[in-house]
């Protein structure tokens, strides 16, 4: 059975990706996790300058999902290069570095600093963090997304993945724009805008008031968007949003994902990639599928 998948120039040994923000910057989980069964790990988003992140509390669990408002807490790119990057090459997985910023020039500088690093296998552009208190996310605008990717495309030959927000009227238009601008893949979806209120204190459960919603609750909505995009753009789609077991993962493949992305479930089960991969293989064997293409094409709608 062939589980390898190409995302731009990058080849992953299997299509299970651990999503940004749920796996640290690289090797923090090495004592607990079998990295050899993970296709790729996306780092927590790195910004040019260190960021403290948002006011706590930063996480709240609802009936069927989790709201978070971390606010891109990270040590900044220089510290990442010095302290985190050296350890990454030793793990038997690929490392996709997530980049975040407010302005084009921040992304530019990040790509310039990291492009020469061999241990960085690809870039994921976080165009969709819901926790920065900004009026508009980059991936809510075709023009902003397109301009940014055109610019960055000139600076690097590494795989460029655009991480999109689901919070748009028509996500297909955004996916087409980033595709035309030169992105190698889209990763979708980032979290949904959300709010939870403590009725005793009459205050939000989160210090930042609002947060991004993830977990099982968002799966059907995310799956729908992945299906829409996979049916209309040629780019590989890294699909995810609420996957907690292999059945969810299979649904995302059937909807057209080239690879799948595990997020919230990593917080509960850091070895979920390994468990899900094992079950996906079993499912494919049972259904006599030789590769991921067979799996993707088997959706009868």
């Amino acid at each position: 059975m062939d589980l390898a998948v190409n995302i731009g120039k990058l080849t992953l040994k299997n299509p299970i990706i651990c999503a940004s923000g749920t796996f640290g910057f690289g090797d923090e989980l090495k004592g607990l996790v079998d990295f050899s069964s993970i296709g790729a790990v996306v780092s927590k988003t790195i910004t040019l300058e260190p960021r403290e992140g948002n006011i706590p509390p930063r996480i709240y669990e609802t009936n069927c999902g989790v709201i978070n408002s971390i606010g891109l807490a990270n040590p900044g790119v220089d510290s990442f290069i010095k302290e985190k990057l050296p350890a990454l090459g030793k793990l038997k997985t690929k490392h996709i570095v997530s980049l975040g910023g407010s302005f084009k020039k921040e992304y530019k500088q990040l790509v310039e600093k990291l492009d020469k690093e061999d241990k960085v296998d690809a870039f994921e552009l976080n165009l969709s963090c819901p926790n920065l208190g900004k009026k508009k996310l980059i991936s809510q605008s075709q023009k902003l997304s397109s301009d940014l990717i055109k610019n960055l495309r000139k600076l690097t030959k590494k795989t460029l993945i655009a991480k999109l927000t689901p919070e748009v009227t028509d996500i297909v238009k955004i996916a087409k724009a980033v595709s035309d601008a030169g992105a190698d893949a889209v990763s979708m979806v980032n979290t949904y805008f959300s709010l939870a209120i403590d009725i005793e204190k009459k205050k939000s459960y989160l210090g930042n008031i609002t947060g991004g919603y993830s977990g099982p609750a968002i799966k059907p909505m995310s799956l729908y968007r992945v299906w829409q995009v996979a049916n209309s753009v040629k780019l590989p789609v890294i699909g995810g949003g609420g996957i907690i077991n292999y059945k969810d993962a299979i649904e995302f493949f059937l909807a057209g994902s080239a690879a799948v992305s595990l997020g919230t479930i990593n917080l509960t089960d850091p070895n979920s990639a390994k468990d899900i991969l094992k079950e996906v293989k079993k499912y494919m064997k049972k259904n006599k599928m030789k590769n991921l293409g067979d799996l993707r094409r088997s959706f009868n709608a």
Partner: protein
Amino acid sequence: MKKEAKQLTVKIDQVKKVRNDIFLLSFRSAYIAQTAKPGNFLHLKVNTTILRRPLSIHRVKDDLIYILFKQRGRGTKALAEKKKNDQLDLIGPLGNGFKVKRRENSILVAGGIGVAPLLFLAQKLAKRPMSKVPASPAGGQRSTPDNIILMGAKDKKELVCEEEFKKLGFQVKIASEDGSKGYKGFVTDLLKKRLRTSDFGLRANIYACGPKDMFDQINKILKNYKNINTQLSFEQFMGCGLGVCSACVIPTKTGYKKVCQDGPVFNLKEIY
């Protein structure tokens, strides 16, 4: 043995109702028993919730591990409903625990269910070897340092473990906000009195666990006793418990720190 967090599946030995909404859960794990330190927590998988629930280790007896908790939400409700021989998936031991001071006297301050991690700490404090207590009233004889716990709660129903601390040789002082048991008022009033009326406190270390308001009060009181080393065990809504998601931070003097990894125990001077 060096502490390294592991993901383990254990079998529940017992879940016992201690009071109305306070439960004591136990299971056997030689690994946790050998590696856990007071103040460490376990991240328990609850099948009815998405995220795990962080609960501190209450007591270790041979290879039996006890967790004391108050039923508050869906997670603790599911834990309370566990039965003997049910499986429990956990990650632990986690976090930075209390630094057990070998020589000095100890004052433990418990606010409500904050008493939970303090019994495990008391077990270690009670076992300290005989040593010269620097300025003991008896004049430098070899003796075990003295231990006291100040326990506070809203009412007597919330006050648990008194006997367990007594068995470990602890002096127990109790406060309840409604006066249903012990002193009527806050546990921090007991601390204030203790420090004012006896020189015992001046040679003691303080170890506390309870709500943030209680820590604020302790900080206020200790402004007059700057040399008393004080450790506080915090709680916060938590994501991974392993230091990767940065969800469970609290503000400290040097920026946000993760409760799961930098804490849950912090020195008072790091916070205030």
